[in-house]
């Protein structure tokens, strides 16, 4: 198992490192490798870098926040996806299953519709995501005596559809020249214009969400056996489920609030991680986070370099994710039964 660990986490870590460097270098304003090194060295040593100030600005003010955001959000969405998939014993589940994306979407769309500032839009998205899941959870908890997992999923689907309709309604009333493009762009996800001050508030929230996932990483396996078996093995499933849902929802809502809705990562990255590390959650979680960080970083770098205009990330993740998912299905390397 030890040598397997190297393959499991070592290679993805190396790939992530290379991606970091590449993402700093490429873009509309290419930074030559020796300039990049000079800038990094200057930061470490405190001396002058000797490169034009514009290069320093690009590296520290533009590229760094974006790279940090992509890695953080990719890892966060993958962790949330792996959690939801284990919790709902369903590999087709994504972090949106309980309506968090739809709730965040409605919050953000309302914020844009009411012409609020970016900070308010982000806060509304975050709260909207949490509120949607809370309602779904309470509805599920009210229906005792049925399969609690099934009730949650069905309530989540209903909630997602309802909120989706509400989003469409707001779009109908929105100003087609100012607000509608902003709404559309938000719903497709983007890390354009993200700053470090956008990341600072969500970083602690994501860490708070990740903590229980890390602490309860072995217990998570029990949840994927189903409610009755897990209880018979000694797990207090209702409490554990509440904790896992709260943690994964917190992570997702915080991510989505600054990035907009980026689909597919929470769905396919846990699959890829399962192929790499197996389904056991304490091995799956770090693998999923590494792959998620690398994947979103790669996709975001593509999004800003492929064409003259920025391509929304949600479109790219779907273009890459859907064929990958179909390949998984067709090749039988599903990582589930």
């Amino acid at each position, binding site marked *: 198992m030890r040598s397997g660990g190297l393959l499991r986490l070592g290679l993805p870590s190396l790939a992530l490192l290379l991606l970091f460097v590449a993402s700093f270098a490429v873009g509309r304003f290419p930074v030559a490798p020796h300039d990049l090194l000079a800038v990094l060295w200057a930061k470490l040593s405190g001396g002058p870098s000797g490169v034009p100030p514009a290069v320093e600005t690009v590296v520290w003010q533009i590229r760094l926040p974006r790279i940090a955001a992509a890695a953080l959000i990719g890892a966060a969405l993958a962790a949330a996806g792996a959690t939801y998939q284990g919790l709902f014993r369903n590999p087709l589940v994504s972090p949106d299953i309980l309506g968090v994306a739809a709730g965040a979407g409605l919050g953000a769309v309302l914020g844009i519709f009411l012409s609020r500032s970016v900070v308010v839009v982000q806060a509304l998205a975050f709260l909207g995501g949490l509120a949607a899941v809370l309602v779904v959870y309470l509805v599920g908890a009210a229906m005792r*005596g049925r399969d609690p997992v099934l009730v949650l999923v069905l309530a989540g689907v209903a909630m997602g559809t309802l909120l989706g309709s509400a989003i469409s309604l707001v779009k109908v009333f929105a100003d087609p020249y100012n607000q509608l493009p902003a709404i559309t762009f938000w719903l497709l996800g983007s890390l354009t214009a993200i700053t470090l001050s956008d990341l600072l508030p969500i970083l602690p929230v994501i860490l708070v969400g990740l903590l229980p996932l890390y602490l309860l990483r*072995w217990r998570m396996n029990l949840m994927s*056996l189903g409610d009755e078996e897990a*209880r*018979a*093995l*000694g797990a*207090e499933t209702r409490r554990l489920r509440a904790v896992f849902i709260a943690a994964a929802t917190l992570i997702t809502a915080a991510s989505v609030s600054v990035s907009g809705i980026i689909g597919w990562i929470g769905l396919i990255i846990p699959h890829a991680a399962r192929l790499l590390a197996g*389904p056991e959650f304490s091995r799956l979680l770090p693998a999923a986070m590494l792959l998620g960080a690398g994947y979103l970083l790669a996709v975001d770098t593509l999004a800003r370099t492929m064409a003259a205009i920025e391509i929304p990330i949600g479109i790219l993740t779907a273009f890459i994710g859907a064929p990958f998912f179909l390949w998984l299905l067709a090749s039988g390397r599903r990582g589930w*039964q």
Partner: protein
Amino acid sequence: MLSADNLAFGYRGKPVGSGVSIDIRAGEVLCLLGPNGGGKTTLMKTLLGLLPPLAGAVRLDGVDVAAWPRKRLARVVGYVPQAHAAFFPFAVSDIVLMGRSAHVGLFAAPSRHDRAVAARALETLGIGHLHDRIYTEISGGERQLVLIARALAQEPRILVMDEPTASLDFGNQLRVLGRVAALAASGMAVVLSTHDPDHVFLCGDRVALLHGGGMAAIGAPEAVITPAALKRLYGVDVQVVELPGQQTRTCVPAVEGLRRPRPAAP
């Protein structure tokens, strides 16, 4: 040891059975026999504390377990569900290790000792070679044994098994029953449900007949499993035949339409 005291069981607003009193003793195999919908599974879930009793109580050494935390109960009572396909391809060792949850701290991972107990549980059942296999890739009979090993890793005093022979081939059915009998011989109390009265003759020390939610009879298999009782349970005519020199009995169906004359060879 584990006893049900005038137990009524079922779901809220949908009672399944009532008036069931059983006492399960160490070292014995108690079989639950009854038709589909007779209440076997619901009774088992109630014994396991997965469903709250509608009336009466489930007691362990005389103590009502209704308010016990799951962890405490899981250290005494192990549950073997029907062999199922897991949703994720866990290694067999990981599945069996999950039986240790009641002994592992909430935030902890299993220790070396836990791994040793899990490995020993596999050895006890003669399936140590499955340790590194993938649960979703082994046969149904092997899966059933792995689930029994998982319950053994809990180190319980009582095993509750829901139709452990369902969906197994003939050989695996007998192998599983053999392991069950061996576990009882080592002092484990076993409750198992089955659809096959012959299995009761093979490994049961006592049998309880569940019919329409009530307990029709409980006692030694030879005394309880009679043609009249089987007719009442299943609505079919069955002869119960003593096998000469085998000290066991078997059921021979006498259903109209079965055992028709063979067509003449062409």
